[in-house]
């Protein structure tokens, strides 16, 4: 059994230090003296853009032994479908896990985009299928479909996507998609169908995951809760006659000693405006994401100090205040960080999506110091599949 390690590419900007209270890498935040952003020198456009920095992070991950990279997709990020082909041409073995919501792309065109990407990259596409958080964020995208229906749409989307790619000619008459006798052209259809990482914590999500996902992806939660979720998905998959694998998205703050690691976390915590911290504690979110609600539930409803967020050994729940995303992450020395990953592997995790700020330097750090201490053999990045 092998475990795949992915590294996150910060498509919405990055920080040079996790303690820096603003995004200073890239042009996503107002520029200040500490900013590293394109076109800052002498008000003249230079030739760099943020995609060059993302390319550097991708190459750092590749050199450091990561199997692939995750490219998140939100209203405030650059778009993964545009970034990934460019970065694929500049890397050799790195897989590209593109996050996207099925409601935003037509499945036949998504199949074509995907197959073309396989031709361009030598088969390095991976899907991260997300179904959205609802609320104002969803309306931003122009999507009014309610939560459970979004998962029905996701299920239909994946049926059609697979069908036009691998079961041509394909016909389908569903609630959201209808197609008759459709299919990709031969050379595109011959490319490999990507692995599917599937996200979602609700019952509707887990039902859809059971039918389609290769890897069920969750944010890190306390281990008992994670185990319960995995068991639910496994049961669901069995009903569908499939076997599920599991993946966890987790931030890592690892340093040579426990003291150093916790000092960084505490210093980052202290640099946050107390009022912002208080608002975060009581934040409702406004969306319909069950996963986000679960993460909120793991926080304590108080302004207790930092230590109260240590939910288990080396698991600290304050990350979502430092940057948008999962609350719980790993803090500790390299050996303990690796041990927590080993614990998760023992729990049944087959793949990880790791992240840390700054993403360039931390890719090297985690790849060089932590991953070698993780027990099972990592899937070696095989030679490129010959492009057709």
């Amino acid at each position: 059994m092998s475990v795949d390690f992915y590294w996150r590419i910060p498509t919405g900007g990055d920080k040079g230090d996790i303690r820096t209270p603003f995004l200073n890498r890239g042009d996503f935040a107002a520029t200040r003296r500490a900013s590293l952003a394109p076109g800052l020198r002498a008000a003249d456009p230079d030739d760099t853009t943020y995609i060059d920095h993302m390319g550097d992070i991708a190459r750092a991950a590749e050199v450091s032994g990561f199997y692939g990279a995750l490219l998140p997709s939100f209203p405030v990020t650059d778009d993964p479908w545009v970034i990934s082909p460019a970065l694929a041409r500049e890397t050799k073995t790195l897989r590209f896990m593109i996050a996207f919501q099925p409601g935003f792309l037509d499945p036949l065109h998504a199949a074509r985009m995907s197959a073309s990407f396989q031709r361009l990259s030598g088969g390095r596409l991976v899907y991260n299928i997300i179904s959205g958080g609802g609320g104002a964020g969803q309306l931003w995208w122009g999507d009014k479909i309610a939560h459970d229906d979004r998962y029905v749409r996701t299920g239909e989307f994946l049926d059609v996507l697979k069908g036009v790619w691998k079961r041509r000619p394909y016909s389908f008459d569903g609630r959201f998609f209808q197609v008759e006798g459709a299919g990709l052209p031969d050379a595109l259809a011959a490319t490999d169908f990507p692995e599917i990482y599937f996200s979602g914590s609700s019952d509707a999500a887990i039902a859809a995951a059971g039918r389609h996902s290769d890897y069920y992806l969750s944010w890190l939660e306390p281990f008992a809760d994670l185990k319960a979720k995995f068991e639910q998905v496994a049961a669901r998959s069995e009903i569908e006659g499939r076997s599920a694998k599991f993946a966890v998205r987790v931030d890592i703050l690892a340093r040579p000693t426990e003291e150093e690691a916790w000092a960084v976390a505490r210093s980052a915590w202290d640099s946050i405006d107390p009022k912002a911290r208080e608002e975060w504690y009581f934040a409702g979110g406004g969306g319909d994401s069950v996963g986000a609600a679960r993460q909120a539930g793991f926080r304590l409803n108080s302004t207790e100090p930092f230590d109260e967020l240590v939910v288990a050994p080396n698991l600290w729940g304050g990350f979502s205040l430092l940057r948008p995303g999962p609350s719980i992450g790993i803090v500790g020395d390299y050996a303990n960080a690796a041990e927590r990953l080993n614990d998760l592997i023992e729990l049944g995790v087959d793949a990880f999506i790791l992240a840390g700020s700054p993403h360039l330097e931390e890719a090297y750090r985690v790849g060089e110091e932590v991953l070698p201490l993780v027990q099972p053999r990592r899937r070696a990045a095989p030679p490129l599949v010959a492009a057709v």
Partner: protein
Amino acid sequence: MTLLWTLPVGTEGRGAGSLGARDVRAQFFTPFDYLEQVARAVEAGGFDGALVPFDAEGDDPWIAATAVARATRRLAVIVEFATTFGTPVYAAKMAATFQRFSHGRLSLKPVLGDQPVPRATVVTPGEDPFDRVHEYLEIGRGLWEGTNYSYDGKIFEVAGSGLIPPLRTYPAPHVYLSGNDPRIQDLSIHLGDVHLWELTEPASLPALVADLARRAEAALRPVRSGLRLAVLARPSEEEAWSELRRRAAGAGIDDPGTLVPAAGVWTGFERLGYGTPGGLVGSYRQIASALDRFRDEGISSFVLEGRPHLEEAYRFAEFVRPSLDLELTALPA
């Protein structure tokens, strides 16, 4: 005069077609390597830009366009895409990232649907494809103008949307629309930047161009006329027509002379697999003169197509372009 060259997206490729034949040296050469090579040839040849066409049987135009932009430094890139590929918000987001990493080199050419390939889309039966393109362009423009944009149309609805300022670092891409249908001309006048005519009836072109210019001026919009055409140029007129006859025969067209509406113009190129029916056939000088005449009649952009793409791009750059009466500064693509 803005000159653009059409790029290959797979079904034409090299010789037998890069989609059909499996290259035994596959690890070393891919259709995308060839695409990038053509793009670099087009840039080196002094063209202002390149069109990445939508071919339902070929590679995806967005993926191809991204590779082209990354392989070039200054070349403008026009992405021709089906408005059924995804939502307008998603398209605007992709366009924004494309602008950011290409330094603002993107132009868009939305086409109506993707017939004849059967769709798997949320297009409702009875939906008017013109409405779809219209709402696509309206929403795209709105999202680029700022935040808190809302739109409630026949097909699409957004609320509180808009690109955040970092994604709007560069202006919205220019919009190319193509077709002789009056409804498309209306869209061009109100929401487009370049209206691309095709060379099917050369005699009617000057009047069409003049009419569009009049209506654009009345609407206070700077819409330009462009021409999309094939080009088969050789050192002499005889060689050019001889080459055309050879290719036409290969496509089962025994009497190509019936498709000559005016001297030097042939309208059967689509049957040879080109993306447009009309084109110029002749010597380098004849073709340069014809392009100069079109320019005098009000056409400022030329989207040219030659096959094979690489060699004909070089040929045009080296032998036709020098004969053009070109101003030294080109209009933006």
